[in-house]
Structures are given as C-alpha cells and as structure tokens.
C-alpha cells in the first residue's frame, strides 16, 4: 500500500514536471543586449550610422519575438538557445556599433574641423586678393560688396566653431560647406577681376 502510494507520487511528480518545467529565460543576455543598444544610442549611433542601427534594432526585435514564441510553446518544448545566441550577437553588434559610431563621429568632427581650417585659409586668401584687386571704376563698389559678403562668411564660420564645440557636427558640416562654396565664389570673382586687369 505504502509502495503504491509512493509510485503514485512519482507519477504526479512526473506530470507536474511535464507541465511546469521549462528552459531558463535568457534574462541576463536580454538585459545585456538592451544595455548595449542603449549605449550605442547614447553615442548617437542612430544618427551617424543609421542603417547599421536599424539592423541592430531589427535583430533585437527578432530576439524578442523568438523569446515570446518559445514562451508560447508547451513547457517541455521550449528552447531559448537560438534567442540566447541572437542576444549575444546583438550585444556584440551593439558594442561594435557604439565604437564605430564614436569613430564615425570623430571622423565627421575632423572633417568639419579641417573644412573650417580650409575655409578660414580661403578667407585669408580672399582678403589678400582684395588688397590686390583693381580699384577703378565700379571695382571699388564690387570690392565693398565682396568685403561685406566675406564678413557674412566669417560670421558663419564663428557659428560653425560654436556648433563643433557643442558636438553638433552634422549641422556644422552643412554650414561650413556653404561657407566654403561662398568663399570660393568670392575668390573666383576676385581672381577673374585681377586677371582682366593684367590682360589690359
């Protein structure tokens, strides 16, 4: 009698195991992946490497779907192996993306700083050309206009320096390119005027 009761207990236990036991949720990996994605976001990866960040987001979503899909399954059938592997990949991807974004941001920063230096040199060249430019009829009026335009460029370059200091390299890039284009056109205008005078 006692033995048959024990046997029944084993059976009930087995049934309980069958219905409740399951694979362990990869919570640690999930937390690590989420933290990694947030860290990538913090260095503006979504701005500087938008396509890569989108792919990372997709992978994280995919892992979440995999987890919930497993959770929907019959306990004994659950396996978080794939989800876990994907979460580890996401964590690695996010860490790489974070580093890449920092590098990219630095590249843009250097590019903008170089463009700023280049445009400042162009401004200096234009100032030298202004000194050489013909001052005859109409020339002086045109020179005055160029000087005021150059003052506008210099004001933009001051704005660019502030934007670089504030870390807004994308906006700085647009402004410095515009300033460079304008300065180049002023330079060309002056060079043409000087060349004309030499030909005369």
């Amino acid at each position, binding site marked *: 009698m006692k033995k048959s009761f024990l046997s029944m207990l084993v*059976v009930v236990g087995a049934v309980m195991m069958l219905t409740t036991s399951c694979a362990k949720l990869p919570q640690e990996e999930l937390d690590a992946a989420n933290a990694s994605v947030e860290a990538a976001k913090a260095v503006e990866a979504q701005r500087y490497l938008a396509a890569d960040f989108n792919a990372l987001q997709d992978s994280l979503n995919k892992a979440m*779907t995999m987890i*919930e899909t497993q959770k929907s399954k019959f306990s004994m059938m659950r396996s978080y192996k794939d989800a876990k592997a994907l979460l580890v990949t996401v964590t690695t991807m996010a860490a790489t993306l974070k580093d890449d974004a920092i590098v990219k941001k630095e590249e843009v920063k250097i590019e903008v700083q170089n463009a700023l230096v280049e445009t400042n040199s162009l401004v200096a060249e234009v100032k030298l050309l202004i000194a050489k430019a013909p001052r005859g009829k109409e020339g002086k009026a*045109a020179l005055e206009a160029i000087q*005021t335009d150059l003052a*506008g460029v210099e004001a933009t370059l001051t704005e660019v320096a502030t934007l670089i200091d504030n870390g807004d390299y994308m906006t700085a890039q*647009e402004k410095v390119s*515009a300033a460079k284009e304008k300065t180049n056109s002023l330079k060309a205008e002056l060079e043409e005027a000087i060349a004309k005078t030499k030909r005369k």
Partner: protein
Amino acid sequence: MSLKRRGKLSLVIIMVLLFTGGGLITLFSLSAHPPVESIDRCSQVLSNARQAEAAEYAGDLLSDAEIAYGEAMVEWNIQNTRWYISRDYSLLNEKIQLALRKGEEACRKSIAVKDSMHHDLAVVFKEVEKDLERYANHFGVLPLNQQSRQDFRTAEMLFLEARKAYESGNYNRVVPKLEKSRFLIGESIRKNQKTLKNYFANISKWKIWVDETINWSRANKKSVIIVDKFAHKCYIYSRGVEIHALDAEFGINWIGEKNYVGDKATPEGRYSVTKMKSKKRTNYYKALLINYPNEEDKARFAQQKKKGLISKKTSIGGLIEIHGGGGKGINWTDGCVAVSNEDMDQVFRWAEVGTPVTIVGSLKTLEEVQASEK
C-alpha cells in the same frame, strides 16, 4: 510485491502518464496560438519603414505603428504567463494588425513625401535662386537699406546650406532653411521695390525738367548740364544736342532728395552754375558751384522741419558742386557730383556761370532701368 501486482502498477503508471500526456497535448493543440507569422511580418514592415526614413517623413504613423507593436509584445508576454487553455491572442492580433497597417502606411507615406519633397523643393530652389539673382542685379549695389543687404547675405548663406542638405537627401532640414531664405529675400525685394517705385513716381517731373532744360539749350544756343543719378551719368548738351556723356559719382546716399546738411545725398532739381573754381580755389581739381538750395529745396526743408522730420538745429546745407577727383568707382562725395579730372576739363570747357544744371533721379522709367539690368 508479486510480479503480477508489480506489472499492474506499472501499467497504471504508464496509463496515467499516457493519459496526462495525451491530455496535455490535446489541451495544447486546442489552446490558442500566437500570430507569429504576422508578428515577424510586422517587424519586417517596421524595419522597412525605418529604412525608408519614416521617422523623418511619416513620424506620426511610424510612432503609432511602433507603439502598437510594443503593446502587442507586452500583450503577448501577458498571455504567455497564463495557463495554455486560458490564453487569448485576439488583442495581440488586433495590435499587430494595427501596427502592420500603420507601418505599411508609414513606409508608403515616407517614400511619397520624400519623392514629392525632392521634386517640390527643386522648384522652390529655382524660385529662390531667381530671387537672389534679381536682388543682386536690381538692388545689390543700391544704397537702399542696410538691413536689407544684411538679410540678402543671410538669405544667400541659408540658400547654400539648404542646398547642401538637399544634396545629402535631408529634405526636412532643407525646408526651414529654404523657407527662411525665401522669406528674407522676398521681403527685401518687396521693400526695396516699393522704395524704388515711390522714388520713380517722380519720373514725369524729371522728364519735364530734362525736356525743358534741353529745349532751353536749343532755343538759347547754349550749353546745359544734365545729371542722371541712376545711370551715374553727367551729360553735356550744346544747342540742344548731347555732346558728352561722362561717368559720375555721388554721395553715398544718392537715392532720394537732399534734405539737410551731412545727409550724404545728392540733390535733385533745377539749378545753375554760380561759380567756377580752379587751382587753389578747390580741393577737387576744378569745380562748378551750383545754387543749391533752390526755392523748392528751401520750401521742402521748412515743411519737413515743421513736421518734425528734421531737427530744429539742423541746417539745409550748401556748397554742392560738380567737381573733379572722380573715377573712383564708388559713391563717395558729401552730396556733390564728381567726375574724373579729364572729364572735368570737358565740363569746364562747356560751362559758364549761369549754365543750367538739372539733376534728376533717372531719365528712364523703373521698368526700363530694371530691364536693362537683367
């Protein structure tokens, strides 16, 4: 335990296990299943929408889709904590369908908005570029308004920045820059055009003055001097026939009438030479003093003073001359008419005390002037 009893017990255990297992399988197969396929599809749609820059161009729709997707995932998680048989994925399904719909709509809208912005902005760029050119051609060198010149420069820089953003496909960044550029240049053109129209309202009067002066020259077989400020010309007529068209320079505020001393404006009116100066009597090679202010200038000055437009202490000024020292290419005098020394010799040759000098804003209409500047 006998072998028979042990066999019986084993059979019972097997039966119980089979029954439980079978029951559970039946229960599981009868319970609801999550719409995994739709969820995967939705995830893909959202990814596509993000790639299509829906966050930029269909932000509300993408946000709705992402919220619905997030809620669906939460609902899925909730249902997964329930006992198989009591799981209900209808709300999850509903949320996923909503996310799918909104995501697809966001993707479509983003692509359409980008296409339309690409096209529409190209048109606006052309319009603003035209306005910038128009400003540079018609108002760029005119002493109209310092603020307007500043606005033009700002508009030009904004235009260039907008073009950079357009070239890199950041259309949303283009819009505020281009709109501000268009507004600034549009306002500058409008204000300056209005100022010029008001100024050119005197064209009939100027034409009458010039015609009468030339007729007088013809009738009296004498020389006259006509100054056209807009054309920057000083004409010498003899016996009603133009014999010289000389380049002339004026005061920095040459558009408009001269109102008071030190306003750097060149007067408009009918005057005559009162004195001829040369050698040590002038700093500008040779000079013809004219009788500014005339009666009309005095009357206008008095009226403006009465209205409080001119301070009581300010005087009307004088010593307006046609003199040499010109050819600088800019308007630099305090209100006089300057020509080059060589040209001044011509002026001096043809002028005498009493020679009529008529100074007008323009001999052409504003439309004619602007058409010739194109």
